[in-house]
C-alpha cells in the first residue's frame, strides 16, 4: 500500500452523516447546490467537538455544560479545563472563583484578560489573588495577562510568589503604571511630569517576566533592583518612539541643565561619546549615527531618554563633566 494511502486512511473521521433531504443555501461563495447529506452537530465526532470547545471561555463552557450529558462530559473534562480563559469581570463572582478553585489542579494555562478596567482599585488585587490561587498547582505551565492596567508593584508581588519552576508569566497589551521608580532615582520624580510619564504600554508584543524571583538571603532593596531590571528590559522592548511634544520637552530640559551648570551646550567630544555609548547599548544600530550633541533625538525611546537625563544629572552633580570639557 502506498505511504500516502496509509497516511490518509488513518485519518478517517468516521463521521455519521444523515440525510435531511434539504437543499442548503450557499451564501457568499457558492452557487445553488443539489440536496446533500446534512451534518448535524450532535453527529460530530468527539475530536471535532473538543476542537470547538477549546475556543469557548469558562463562563460560556459552564452554560454549554447544561445542553446534554455528552457536552457536559466534554466540557468538564480535565483536558478541557487545561486552558482557562477569563475576563476580569468574571472574577467578580465569588461562586465562579470557587468553581475554578475546585478544578484548579487540572489547569495548565490561564489567559486572563482585563479589558483595561480603569477606576476599579480592586481589579489589581483580584488579578493578584486569582493568579496566586494556582501557585501550588504542580503542572501549571503559563499565565498570560492581557489588556490589564496593572501597577508595577503588583507585578512585583506576583513574581515573588512561589509558582512551579516551569511556570512562565507572559504579558501582552498591558499598561504597566508606576514604572518611573525603576528608571530614575526617586529624587527625580518632580522632573518627570510629562504625558504618559511613568507608564509603559505593552502593545502586541508578548513579554515574558521571570517568576519566582524571591531569592532567599537578598535584601528588600536587592530584590527591588532585580525586579527593576526586569521592568527596564520590558520598558525598553516596548517603548514607542518619541513624539514631537516629548522631543521638545526633552530638548528644553537638557538645555536647561546645561545652562544651569554652565556647560558649553554644543561641544564636547567626550559628551558625545558618552551619549553614543548609551545609544549603542539601549537602541538599535540605526541610532548610532545620530548627532546626539545637536539633540537630533527623534527616534529615541522614552527609556533611553530617561537614561540620558539621569546620566547627565549624575555627571553634572559629580562635576566630572566640567572637568572633562
Amino acid at each position, binding site marked *: 500500500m502506498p505511504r500516502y494511502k496509509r*497516511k490518509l486512511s488513518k485519518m478517517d473521521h468516521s463521521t455519521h452523516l444523515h440525510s435531511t433531504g434539504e437543499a442548503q443555501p450557499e451564501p457568499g461563495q457558492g452557487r445553488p447546490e443539489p440536496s446533500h447529506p446534512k451534518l448535524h452537530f450532535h453527529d460530530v465526532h468527539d475530536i471535532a467537538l473538543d476542537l470547538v470547545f477549546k475556543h469557548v*471561555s469558562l463562563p*460560556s463552557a459552564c452554560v454549554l455544560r447544561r445542553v*446534554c*450529558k455528552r457536552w*457536559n462530559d466534554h466540557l468538564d473534562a480535565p483536558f478541557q479545563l487545561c486552558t482557562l480563559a477569563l475576563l476580569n469581570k468574571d472574577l467578580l463572582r465569588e461562586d465562579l472563583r470557587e468553581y475554578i478553585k475546585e478544578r484548579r489542579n487540572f489547569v495548565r494555562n490561564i489567559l486572563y484578560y482585563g479589558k483595561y478596567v480603569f477606576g476599579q482599585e480592586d481589579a489589581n488585587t483580584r488579578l493578584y489573588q486569582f493568579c496566586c490561587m494556582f501557585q501550588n498547582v504542580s503542572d501549571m505551565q503559563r499565565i498570560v495577562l492581557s489588556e490589564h492596567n496593572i501597577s508595577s508593584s503588583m507585578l512585583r508581588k506576583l513574581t515573588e510568589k512561589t509558582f512551579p519552576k516551569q511556570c512562565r508569566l507572559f504579558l501582552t497589551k498591558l499598561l504597566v503604571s508606576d514604572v518611573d521608580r525603576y528608571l530614575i532615582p526617586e529624587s527625580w520624580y518632580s522632573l518627570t511630569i510629562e504625558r504618559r510619564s511613568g507608564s509603559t504600554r505593552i502593545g502586541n508584543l508578548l513579554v515574558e517576566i521571570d517568576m519566582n524571583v524571591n531569592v532567599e538571603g537578598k535584601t528588600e532593596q536587592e530584590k527591588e533592583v532585580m525586579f527593576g531590571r526586569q521592568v527596564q528590559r520590558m520598558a525598553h522592548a516596548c517603548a514607542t518612539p518619541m513624539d514631537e511634544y516629548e522631543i521638545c520637552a526633552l530638548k528644553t530640559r537638557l538645555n536647561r541643565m546645561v545652562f544651569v551648570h554652565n556647560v558649553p551646550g554644543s561641544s564636547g567630544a567626550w559628551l558625545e561619546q558618552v551619549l553614543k555609548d548609551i545609544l549603542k547599548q539601549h537602541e538599535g544600530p540605526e541610532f548610532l549615527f545620530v548627532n546626539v550633541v545637536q539633540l537630533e533625538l527623534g527616534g529615541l525611546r522614552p527609556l533611553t531618554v530617561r537614561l540620558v537625563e539621569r546620566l547627565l544629572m549624575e555627571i553634572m552633580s559629580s562635576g566630572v563633566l566640567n572637568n572633562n570639557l
Partner: protein
Amino acid sequence: MSTAASSSTSETIAEPGLKIKVSTKEGEVFELDEKVAKMSQVIRGILEDLGEQNGGDDSVLPLTQVETRIFRKILVWLKYHAGHDKEEAPKAEEDEIIARFCEEIPEWDQKFLNVDQAVILEIMLAADYLDIKKLRGLCCKTVANILKTKTVEQIREMYGIENDFTPEEEEEIRKQTAWCEDEPPRQGSNH
C-alpha cells in the same frame, strides 16, 4: 499511484509552477498550484514522502474523506490565503492561546464562513483531515461564537439535541454552574 482522474472531470486552475493533482471523495480531480496544495500539512507530508520515493508527476492524491462541494470551498480559502498570507513561523503555545481567545476573525474569513452551520462543520472536519490548522481554527471559532450567543434551550432546538439528564443530574449541574445563570448571551463577542 491512483488513477482516479481517469473516470472523473478534471478542473484545472491556471497557475504557473508545479501542479499537484488531488481527487475528492467522488473522484473529481483538482489540479492545484504547489503553494496552495502545501498549505495542507497532509498534502505537504505526502509530497515529501513521494519526493523521497521519486513519485511520478501524474500522481493523484486521493482525498477520500472530502466531498467535492466542500473541497471547492476549501480551495477558495486556500487560494485566497496563499496569495495574501505571509509565511508564518509556527506559533508558540502562548501565542496560540491568545489567538484563540483574543483575535477577531478577519473580515474576509467571516464572509467566507457566513454559510450554513452544517457546512461550517463539514469544512472544519475537512480542514482537520487535511491538517489546515488555520482554517480549522477559524471554523471552530465561528461555531464557538455562535454557541456563545445562544441559550441552552436554543442550542438544543437548533441542533435537535435531546436533554438526556435525569432531573437529579440536571439539578446538580445547575448548582455547580449557578453563577452563570444570569449571564446574558454574549452577542457577537469573541470572549
